[in-house]
């Protein structure tokens, strides 16, 4: 075949012209910083001295062997992520099942549950701080219930529950919307056929609806996982890490080390460990859930 070198050159030039801007922007936002992160993670640096001192893998050794802050914040993050993923998904599926019944008020209900999701997490944290600190006083006085008298942000166990509850409150609308969309793609005739065959409500849910909801579950668990591992904003404004440093997450711990304690090299090493953890967990999760999906 006769090849036209001029045309081929033009196709290549156009390919470059169309893709270059995005590649440049992504390189500036991610790849160059990431490469620098790897370099800094092998150094000791306070951000002030001119040259970071190369220390090899010392930072990593220190973090994994003897950093109590890292260990406790990692444990906090793992506990938080597991509970968040399970609770937010179970609640969202239950709510979605009710809202899929085509009630008169469904449009209003969907909007109502979705509204907190459009608010910034920092602001959500402050709103709840106000409610826990001031609002619960008034609610306790007018109802006499002892739950309102507890120190929801001042006791370690309760502060954990508060953070979890506030995050779920903020984001459940998002998962709800995904599950409603998923439920609407479950064909009605399958459910009818099951009813004819004598299946009860529970049987229908576990044998038909849930398996067909698998793609929605995969995506929701993925989103819940990536968001919960990085939990930061809501803790910053709700508890500030307190009481007594019991509610620091890994992301918060990294932020503190880097910007408050000026341990630049050490902080970036932690950040790199976080990245590897996110990578491994995400790949495992996607592989695990993808295998369970079925086609409708």
């Amino acid at each position, binding site marked *: 075949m006769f090849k036209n070198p001029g045309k081929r050159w033009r196709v290549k030039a*156009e*390919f470059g012209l*169309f893709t270059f*801007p*995005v*590649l440049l*922007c*992504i390189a*500036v*936002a*991610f*790849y*160059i*910083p*990431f490469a620098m*992160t790897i370099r*800094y993670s092998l150094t000791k640096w306070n951000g002030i001295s001119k040259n970071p001192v190369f220390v090899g893998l010392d930072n990593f050794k220190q973090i994994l062997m003897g950093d109590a802050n890292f260990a406790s914040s990692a444990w906090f993050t793992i506990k938080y992520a597991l509970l968040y993923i399970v609770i937010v998904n179970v609640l969202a599926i239950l709510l979605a099942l009710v809202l899929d*019944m085509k*009630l*008169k*008020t469904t449009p*209003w*209900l969907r909007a*109502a*549950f*979705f*509204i*907190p*999701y*459009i*608010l*910034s*997490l*920092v*602001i959500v944290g*402050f*709103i709840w701080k*106000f*409610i826990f600190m*001031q*609002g619960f006083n*008034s609610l306790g006085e007018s109802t006499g219930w002892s739950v309102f008298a507890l120190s929801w942000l001042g006791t370690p166990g309760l502060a954990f529950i508060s953070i979890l509850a506030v995050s779920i*409150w903020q984001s459940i609308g998002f998962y709800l*919307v995904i599950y409603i*969309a998923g439920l609407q793609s479950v064909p009605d005739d399958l459910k009818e056929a099951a009813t004819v065959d004598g299946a009860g409500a529970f049987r229908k849910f576990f044998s038909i609806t849930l398996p067909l909801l698998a*793609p929605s579950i995969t*995506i929701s668990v993925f989103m819940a996982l990536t968001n919960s*591992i*990085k939990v*930061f*904003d809501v803790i910053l404004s709700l508890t500030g890490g307190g009481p007594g440093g019991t509610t620091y997450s*890994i*992301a918060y711990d*990294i*932020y503190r080390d880097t910007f408050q304690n000026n341990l630049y090299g050490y902080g*970036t090493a932690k*950040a790199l460990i*976080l*990245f590897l953890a*996110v990578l491994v967990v995400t790949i495992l999760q996607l592989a695990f859930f993808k295998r369970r999906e079925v086609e409708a």
Partner: protein
Amino acid sequence: MKWSPGRIITEVVMVLLSLLFLYPLFLTIINSFKSFGEVMTDVIALPKSLTFSNYTYVWEFINYPRLFMNNLVITVVGLVGIVLISSIAAYKLARTKSKLSGILYFICIMPMLIPFQSIMLTVLQISKSFHLSESTWGLGLLYWGFGAPLAVFIYHGFVKGIPAEIDESATIDGASGFRLFFSVIFPLLKSVTTTIVIIDVMWIWNDFLLPLLMVNGSPDTKTLTLVAYTFVGQYTSDWQYAMTAMVMAVLPSIVVFIFLQKYIVKGVVAGAVKG
């Protein structure tokens, strides 16, 4: 549909549940109209009178119009860039069947797995050396790179569903390159562009950590969320002002949500299911 007792009970229970769910927001709003004394003595009571003095105070104190403009500049600059560079690249990458194209696509979407905390320090350094920090335009520009991976991913999936014959017939008609993209392809991407705009507006408008690192230095460049954060930090005892600042920071998002509710929910679903 019939009104059965079961359905009525479900409706009532669900409406009550949703009102309880929104009660914290209601408390925030009513307390923004109260005086300091009223907030301290009774949080759940309605305000005695409807005065806007908290609002006028906070409006002037934080220079609200300025902050609003900052948010607007950052969000618009960010959005326009993300949409333009991502759609055009995703289109080319989806249409070109070569090894290089596959690798570049992977390079584009891979950063979705990098947590921001892993790179925040070095991003700050780079933006300083490019003179992007302490400027709303610079921050908006930085969002191009941060928003691109997801946008490329969503556009790429969508372009694959557009038949290549459309490109061919447009080429025969004499259009090629940018002309082909902007007058033929881009209009076809309208629905997916809506999705991306919605996801990114909610994200950029409310973002906290990146603005905290990038534009927190001068009062002229701060964003609404940033100022709400510092404001509450300084005024934790003056809850009436804090609540007013909260309401003013979230009001724009709520107004937009009410008007565009249908598209927002659809956009989130499309983005999440594809993303």
